[in-house]
């Protein structure tokens, strides 16, 4: 349905997006995961025809979006990071304005306004000025405005940044519902690994303007299928112990966490005894030991050596 072909964007000599290739099938929910500055927003600006690529192309059903931006605009809904609404207008006035801009009018406009307000749960507050809304409500009405014209593809750029957990859950549930029940194709960008894990069928991981891994969640986690993650909670920080474990032959990665240490080791290896011995040597008090299956966060850490939110 939608694909990018060696998409590249250079700003004043600096490569922001470097040869991105991705595709989306109808009804899929795709995640674009990456830290801040990875190039996610630039990529979706090019996909949505707002930004002209330096090179490469975006194709919708085989037709070039770069040459004919109009081809994608009618089927696309974009939820930007910013609250792209008029704060001095009420939610209803905003919906009416954007609905008319999209060419809706009369009863169909009124019906659609009430439908999207119901979807985002803001029917009761539709006569209030947007500036009086909480951050979470503003995010929801921002999403409603993108769905007014019943788009086939919904692109969401970090739609949950800076909001409370309840609003976040509401948005995630709504997106999941729209994808599963209405067959809406979703491209969801975030640097929250758990959101992408919860929502998306397939994931593209971006860093420094490039796709460094892609696939279903299981496929990505299989990158770490030969490894285990061990969390060791300690009573305090032991830098010498961490340094010692990093040198240990069988330990692939050792990092310090808030509570203690995180170690990645080959699956099935018997390293716990040597870890306990090292702790004993530095008189470190072990409070808890937890062996976990890998997450996308672990995959990202494995691929880049950095955390998603660094």
């Amino acid at each position: 349905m939608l694909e990018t072909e060696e998409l590249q964007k250079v700003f004043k000599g600096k490569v922001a997006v470097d040869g991105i290739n991705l595709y989306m099938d109808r009804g899929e929910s795709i995640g674009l995961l990456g830290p801040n500055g990875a190039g996610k927003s630039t990529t979706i600006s090019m996909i949505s025809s707002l930004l002209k690529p330096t090179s490469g192309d975006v194709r919708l059903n085989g037709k070039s979006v770069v040459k004919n931006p109009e081809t994608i605009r009618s089927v696309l809904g974009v939820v930007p990071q910013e609250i792209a609404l008029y704060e001095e207008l009420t939610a209803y006035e905003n919906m009416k304005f954007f609905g008319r801009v999209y060419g809706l009018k009369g009863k169909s406009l009124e019906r659609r306004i009430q439908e999207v307000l119901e979807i985002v749960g803001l029917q009761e507050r539709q006569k209030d000025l947007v500036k009086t809304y909480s951050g979470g409500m503003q995010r929801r009405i921002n999403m409603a405005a993108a769905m007014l014209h019943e788009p086939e593809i919904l692109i969401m750029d970090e739609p949950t940044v800076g909001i409370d957990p309840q609003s976040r859950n509401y948005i995630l549930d709504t997106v999941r519902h729209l994808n599963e029940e209405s067959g809406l194709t979703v491209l969801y960008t975030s640097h929250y690994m758990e959101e992408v894990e919860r929502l998306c069928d397939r994931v593209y991981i971006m860093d420094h303007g490039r796709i460094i891994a892609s696939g279903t969640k299981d496929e990505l986690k299989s990158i770490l299928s030969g490894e285990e993650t061990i969390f060791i909670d300690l009573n305090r920080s032991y830098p010498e112990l961490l340094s010692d474990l990093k040198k240990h032959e069988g330990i692939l990665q050792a990092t310090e966490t808030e509570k203690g240490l995180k170690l990645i080791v080959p699956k099935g290896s018997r390293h716990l005894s040597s870890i306990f011995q090292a702790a004993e040597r530095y008189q470190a008090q072990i409070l808890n030991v937890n062996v976990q299956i890998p997450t996308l966060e672990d995959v990202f850490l494995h691929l880049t050596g950095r955390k998603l939110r660094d």
Partner: protein
Amino acid sequence: MHSFLKKDILILLRDRSELLLLLLMPFILIAILGFALRGLFSGDPEPLQISVAIVQQDNEKAGIEKFLSDQRDQGFSEEVIAELESVAFKVSPYTLLNQVFKDERLREMITIIDMNLEEAELALSSEEIAAILTFPTEFTFLSLKNMLLNDGGGSELQVTVNDYGSLQAKVFQSIIQEFVRALNFETAMTQALSEEGIVIEEWDLRDIELGGIETVTSKDPITSFEYYTFAIAVMFVLYVASTLASKAYVEKQQQVFNRILLSGKHPISYLSGKIISAIIIAFCQLLILFTSSSLLFRPFQDVDVMFWAGILLISAILSIGVGGLTAVLTALTVRFDNETFSSVFSGGIVTIFAFTGGSFIPVANMAEIVSVIGDWTPNGAALSAYLQWKQGFTFDSILPFMGRIIGLSIVLIASSVWIFPRRRSF
């Protein structure tokens, strides 16, 4: 287009600081400048009061009798004498001058006090009166001889003033000079017609031009309130352009502009929406300012429907000019994603336009080059058009000013279309 207009008006109405700038500020300035600079404008009603002493050294009745007696001695028949007596009482200069002073326009301005010469000179030196008008001995007798029989050199009225530079003295001298000129003219006319056998039954000097009332032009004068209602309105209407351009910047920053683009609307339709909004908002602002100023300060009195029709037409054309300015500022702001353009316009260019356009002080008091530049600014051209229309100039006179504004608007809008991003944001 209607959606853009409604949205822009709603946003403006809910922005109190902008409303204060666009409506309250100009209203306050009209009040302050209108009151503070009263008297600087020729049309401001400054009632002139002139006290004049009349020193009557002549006896009108005795003068007429002496004139008739003189004619009897010349051998005129009683029938002619009776005719001369009837005319003499009617055209006696003293009587005629009294008729002039009784004129409604002069009665409010001139106070006549009968005095003897000594009292009058004393009053003049103490500036209780502005002038002394002396009717010398035999004034009536000599004047009638000259006027009715073209005999002798007549007599002279004597006007004594203390201060030649004073406005009151000048005005009074002008009145008397005009009276004498009219009297001499009527006398000459009567004598010429008499020779042709035509007799004028009555002289009426009440409609003579009194002179001495200063006007700036030959048209109606302008009061300070009239001037500043127009001058401040044409200045503050320019702020509509910067206000809408700064809103465009916010729309760009908050991705609202992108959302509009993504709807498939052509970018120029967004720009057109801004232009239409600017025109309508500017027109409404001008109407509100003129209406509220008219109700509170009553600058436009005794005006007819044609006056208001002209004001509406000039306002509509000025609003189109504001639309042009809005277009360029919006195009620059969106294209370069920078608010500086609207800030520089509202913070500096409006002030320069206002100065050269005559919004602070009339450009007639400044160097000619300022006036020439000002007439090429939309506000300056509109102010000239408003003032000339108020003064009663013809439509043809104000047409060049309106032509300039329309020409400027076309150039500005064409430039904005060229500058404005076409397909996508950059």
